[in-house]
C-alpha cells in the first residue's frame, strides 16, 4: 500500500492519498513509516521529476496539496508516537520595499510540502522584523526574496541584522535578479534559482538529506 500512497502523491490524487493514509493508520501501521515510505517517498519522486523538468508547477502543487492533506491526518498520530514531521523551521519574507510575492509564496508552499515548518512574514518586511522573527520563532533558516534590482539591495542589511540577532540561523536568498554572486555579496549562505532548488538548498544548509 506504500506504493499506492506514493502514486497518489505523484499524481496529486488528494482523496486517494487521504483514504490510503487512513487505511494504513487503521491497520496500526507506524505513522513514521506512512510518512517516510509513502508520502515523502512520493514527494521525492515529484521533486526529482520537477528538477528534471518532467513535472511542472501545477502538477507539483497538486501533489503538494495531496501531501498536505495526508500529513494533516497523520500529524496527531505522529505526535502521539513521539515522532516528528518537521525538518526545520523557516521564516520567509519579501524584503523591505518590495511587494512581489508570487515567487516567495511558491517557495513557501514547496518548502512546506517538503516538511518544513513555515512562518511567512509576507511582503515589504522590515529588516528588524525579519531578524526579530528569526529569533522569536526559533528559526533554523531565513529565506529572503526580492524581484527588483533596487529592492534586492535590502537583502544585505537584512542578512547583517539576522547574523547580529543569531549566529546559528542560516540565510538563503532568491528572486529574479538574484545570482550566486549577489548571494555571496549579500553575505547569504546560499541561493536557489527556483522553488524546487530552494528545497534542496534548505536541506543542504540544515545538513539534512537532500
Amino acid at each position: 500500500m506504500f506504493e499506492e500512497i506514493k502514486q497518489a502523491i505523484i499524481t496529486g490524487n488528494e482523496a486517494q492519498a487521504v483514504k490510503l493514509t487512513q487505511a494504513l493508520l487503521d491497520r496500526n501501521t507506524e505513522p513514521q513509516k506512512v510518512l517516510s515510505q509513502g508520502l515523502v517517498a512520493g514527494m521525492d519522486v515529484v521533486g526529482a521529476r520537477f528538477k528534471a523538468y518532467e513535472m511542472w508547477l501545477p502538477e507539483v502543487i497538486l501533489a503538494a496539496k495531496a501531501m498536505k492533506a495526508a500529513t494533516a491526518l497523520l500529524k496527531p498520530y505522529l505526535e502521539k508516537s513521539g515522532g516528528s514531521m518537521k525538518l526545520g523551521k523557516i521564516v520567509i519574507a519579501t524584503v523591505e520595499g518590495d511587494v512581489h510575492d508570487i515567487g516567495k509564496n511558491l517557495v513557501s508552499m514547496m518548502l512546506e510540502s517538503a516538511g518544513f515548518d513555515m512562518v511567512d512574514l509576507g511582503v515589504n518586511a522590515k529588516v528588524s522584523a525579519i531578524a526579530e522573527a528569526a529569533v522569536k520563532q526559533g528559526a533554523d533558516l531565513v529565506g529572503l526574496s526580492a524581484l527588483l534590482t533596487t529592492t534586492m539591495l535590502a537583502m544585505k542589511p537584512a542578512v547583517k541584522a539576522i547574523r547580529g540577532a543569531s549566529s546559528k540561523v542560516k540565510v538563503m536568498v532568491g528572486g529574479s535578479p538574484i545570482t550566486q554572486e549577489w548571494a555571496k555579496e549579500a553575505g547569504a549562505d546560499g541561493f536557489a534559482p527556483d522553488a524546487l532548488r530552494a528545497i534542496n538548498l534548505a536541506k543542504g544548509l540544515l545538513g539534512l538529506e537532500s
Partner: protein
Amino acid sequence: MRLPDYGLKGGLAPEQIRTLHEKAMWLIETSGIQVPHQGVLKLLAGHDGVRIEKDIVRFKPEVVLRALKAAKYDVPEYAKTGWVMSAGAHQTNCYGLDTGRLRLPTTQDLVDFLKLGDALDTVGSAPVIPMDVPVHLQHLLMHKLAYEHTRYRCNDIYEHMDKPSYECAMYVREMAQAANKRFAFGIWMISPKSFDERNLEVAYRLRDLGIPMWVATMPQAGVTAPITILGTVLQSMFEIFAGLTVLALMNPKGHNYISPADAFEANTFDMKYTTFVYGSVEYIQHSLHQIALCKHYGIPIIVKSLLSTAKEPDAHAAAEMGIHTFIAALAGARAFRCGGLLSTGEVYCGEWVVILHEMIEYIKQVLKSEDFSEERLMVRDIVEVGPGGTYVDKRSTYELFRQEYWTPRLFEHSNVGQWIELGSKTMRQQAQEAARRLIAGHSYGIDGNVKKELDKIYERARRDQALEKSLKLQI
C-alpha cells in the same frame, strides 16, 4: 465562436495587379524574349500568335493567357493544411555539425542534413552538394540520397534541383521511377529576357517524355532588371509568363508551371558589396508583392523568408528571418524556404534549421485561431479566488496549462540560474545537440530492393563516360 484570423493590410491593390498584368502582356508582345535555341525556335514557329524575328520571340496575349490557364500545380497533401518549411538548396559550403566550422560538405554531411531535414518534416531540394565525389555524380547522388533518406525531398513542386545535362536528367529520371518519386525539369530565364542555351537544349530533348516542366527567373534590381523593386517584379512577371508560354508550346505532352519557389522573384542587389541581398528590407517588400501576385494567379505561395546576409547563425540572421517570416505569415504565406542557408545562400548550417523550425512553430502558435467563449473567460475562477489568493492550485490550471501554452523545444523559459545549472549552453550549442539527436533518431528509409536498384543505376552512371563528358563540357 472563434477570433477572426490576423492579417496584413496594404500592398498591391487589385487594380495595381491588373496594371502589372497588362504591362507584362504588352512587354511580351512588343519587346519579346530571346530564345537562343534553333530547335525550340522551330517548335514555336508553327503556332498562331507567335512572332519570331531572328531569335527574338513575341507572343500575343491570348497565347500567354492560355499557357497561364493551363499551368498546373500539384500541391502535395501535406501543404494543403499544414505549414511548410523547405530547407537548403544545394550549397557548396556548410558549418560542420561536429566542429561548428565552415567546410566543404561531404557525402556524410549530405546524408546527415537530409536525415535532419526529414526529422523536422522539411521539404525542397537536397541541402548540400557532396564535394567529395566527382562533379558528374554530384547531382545524381543528391537525388539518390534524398530518395533513400527522406519522404519529401526532391519529390514535389517545392524542389528545384538542377539536372545540368540531358544524360544527368535521364539518370535522375530513371532513379525517380525506381524509387517512385516525382521527376520534373526546370528552365531558368537569364535576365534580362533570355535563356541558357544548354538548359534549353536539355528541355528540348526531354520534351516528348511527358514530364512536368517549370520555369523560373531571378532578375537583379539595378543590374539585370530596373532599379525599383516594382520594376523588377514587372520584369520577373514578364519573363516567367513568356517562359511558361515557351514551355506550353514546346512541352505539350507534360504539364507546365511557374516554379512556386521563384515565382515573381525580384532579387535585390547591394551596390556597396556587389552581392545579392536576401533578407533586406526591400526583399521583404518584394515578398509581399510576390504573395499578392501568387494569390491572384493561383500559384502556391512559398516565400524565401529564411534567408539573410548573416554569415553565422546569429542575431542578424534571427532578426531578418524572424521578421520576414512573420510578416509573410501575416500576409497569408504558410510555406517558407531556404531554411539553413546563411550568407545569402552560400552556406548551409544544420543547427540553424533546428532553430528556424522552432521559429516557424513560434509564429504558427502566435497566429493559431482561438475560441472566444464563456468557458474561456473563466469568470467563475476569478470569482472563486479571493484577494491575495492563487490560481496555481486551481483544477482548471492543472487541466489546461499544458494545452494553453506552447512548449518550446529550444527557446527555453528558464531563468539564468537554471540555465547555468543546465550547463550555460548557447542557443547554437543546444541546436547542435538537438540536430545530432534528431539525426541519430531518424528512422525513415526506403525498401531494400529499391535501394539496390538505385545503387545499380548509380554504379552504371559512375562508369558512364558520356555522362562525365556531358558535364565536363559545361565546366
